[in-house]
């Protein structure tokens, strides 16, 4: 039986975590992708390597990704599929457990590995342990930790795009609006380099110091929970156990102590740099390169040094 991926997109292309989910799904069977919204995104999905078929719907109830109608649609499609997957994004985490319960199966959240069709590896306790779990359910409903799978290539495929059937909209909720920050910087979960600031930044004004270095590197900007709670950075910048999970080539943690909840979101980065004035800070225990000192002195120096070629 084929497997179905519910993909996130930006109106024209699938997100990188969605392509990672397609890569995970490819280990389980022939991959079909469900795209809700813009037709351009469905066309883009058809190009992704390894995709055999794209199901597309522009129907109104799905436009804003409301969990109730999207889950109803997935349940209507479920008989044709052995596995239903989505990235462990805000959208996937919202919808997939609902789908699982409607199918009377236990959702398998945030998988970091596929062992076989029934068996998956998933981090627990903020990534301090990895559990290998085998599902006894007849169908698997899964969210995928994108950072653990190399994304399928954006091109190379040539799948057919078909209209998805429609399911009854339960009509339980409505979308009122969104405040989505526009940014020229790369998306946090897709960036090759991430520069994150912590509580030590002291203000949103001071976060410009992070942005300056990030822009020299073409990097995304992240933050610790403490920085987000204090209002120095927006909520979607939070990296960690209960924020975003990232695994870039380079992660630079600035004025971040390295609490387990933060490490959970970035310790799989290839190279980690820590800048902190406390040489005992736990962040140094995971850092490849540590620089001890005052960030307000070191970060401008770093920006200047990066400007030299």
């Amino acid at each position, binding site marked *: 039986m084929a497997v179905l991926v519910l993909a996130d997109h930006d109106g024209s292309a699938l997100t990188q975590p969605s392509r990672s989910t397609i890569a995970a799904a490819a280990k389980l069977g022939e991959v079909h992708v469900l795209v809700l919204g813009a037709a351009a995104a469905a066309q883009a999905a058809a190009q992704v390597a390894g995709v055999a078929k794209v199901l597309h719907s522009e129907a109104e109830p799905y436009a804003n990704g409301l969990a109730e109608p999207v889950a109803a649609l997935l349940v209507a499609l479920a008989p044709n599929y052995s596995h239903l997957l989505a990235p462990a994004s805000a959208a996937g985490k919202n919808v997939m457990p609902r789908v*699982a319960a409607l199918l009377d199966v236990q959702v398998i959240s945030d998988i970091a590995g596929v062992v076989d069709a029934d068996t998956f590896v998933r981090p627990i306790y903020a990534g301090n342990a990895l559990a*290998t779990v085998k599902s006894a359910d007849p169908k698997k409903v899964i969210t995928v930790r994108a950072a653990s799978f190399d994304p399928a290539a954006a091109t190379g495929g040539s799948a057919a795009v078909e209209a998805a059937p429609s399911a009854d909209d339960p009509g339980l909720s409505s979308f009122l609006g969104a405040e989505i920050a526009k940014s020229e910087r790369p998306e946090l979960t897709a960036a090759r380099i991430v520069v994150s600031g912590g509580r030590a930044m002291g203000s949103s004004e001071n976060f410009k110091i992070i942005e300056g270095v990030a822009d020299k590197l073409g990097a995304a900007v992240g933050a610790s929970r403490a920085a987000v709670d204090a209002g120095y950075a927006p909520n979607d910048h939070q990296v960690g156990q209960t924020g975003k999970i990232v695994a870039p080539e380079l992660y630079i943690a600035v004025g971040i102590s390295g609490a387990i909840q933060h490490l959970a979101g970035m310790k799989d980065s290839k190279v980690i740099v820590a800048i902190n004035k406390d040489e005992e800070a736990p962040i140094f225990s995971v850092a490849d390169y540590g620089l001890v000192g005052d960030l307000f002195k070191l970060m401008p120096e770093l920006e200047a040094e990066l400007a030299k070629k």
Partner: protein
Amino acid sequence: MKLLVPVKRVVDYNVKVRVKADGTGVETANVKMSMNPFDEIAVEEAVRLKEKGVATEIVAVSCGPTACQEQIRTALAMGADRGILVEHDGVLEPLAVAKLLKALVAKENPELVILGKQAIDDDMNATGQMLAALLGWAQGTFASKVEKDGDKLKVTREVDGGLETVSLKLPAIVTTDLRLNEPRYASLPNIMKARKKPIENVKPADLGVDVTPRLTVLKVEEPAKRQAGKKVGSVQELVDKLRNEAKVI
């Protein structure tokens, strides 16, 4: 309106968990246990709704071993009115908990159930959505703001690019994110008062729910350890290493 607030007993967030030597799970004996932090936020939100006159009664529920009474007492000390313990000693997966809660919803008829978005032990992020599905209710997950809006509930949600706002028909499910509120500490007089508040005890069988797990844990391992690297002496040295040794910039 009446509120139901489920609370989970978990290993305290400050504990560095250790994987058991035999690979069957993590060490939980003699480890500090607490209420899941997201559930504290859920209790706090419920209490604030009651203080605003929106909620009339708050029922705190915990599913698990007898010791979960401690977490129910904490919720009662924060301001919940009474408790229900669904006593069970084995593993309870989110689907099973959602089924237990559905059975309690049928008995209690709350108009709103507020849950934490995620338990910090299994990190599943699922029970609220699963309960909403089983009840056929609307869900407002990862909430950073909850307002009663006539006969609807307006929920601001933390999503990937920022925030979005949805309107839910009641009854509904809300799951809490970190920025919804800052939970209060229970005062000593309230802790004393909480001792007198009633906690009802039921078993999954009393509720007619089969809680057999669907997932078998084959093994639990420690993730690969990262080696601490070296300290560099200057910004120049750092940039040189990143360019010429790690080759990442």
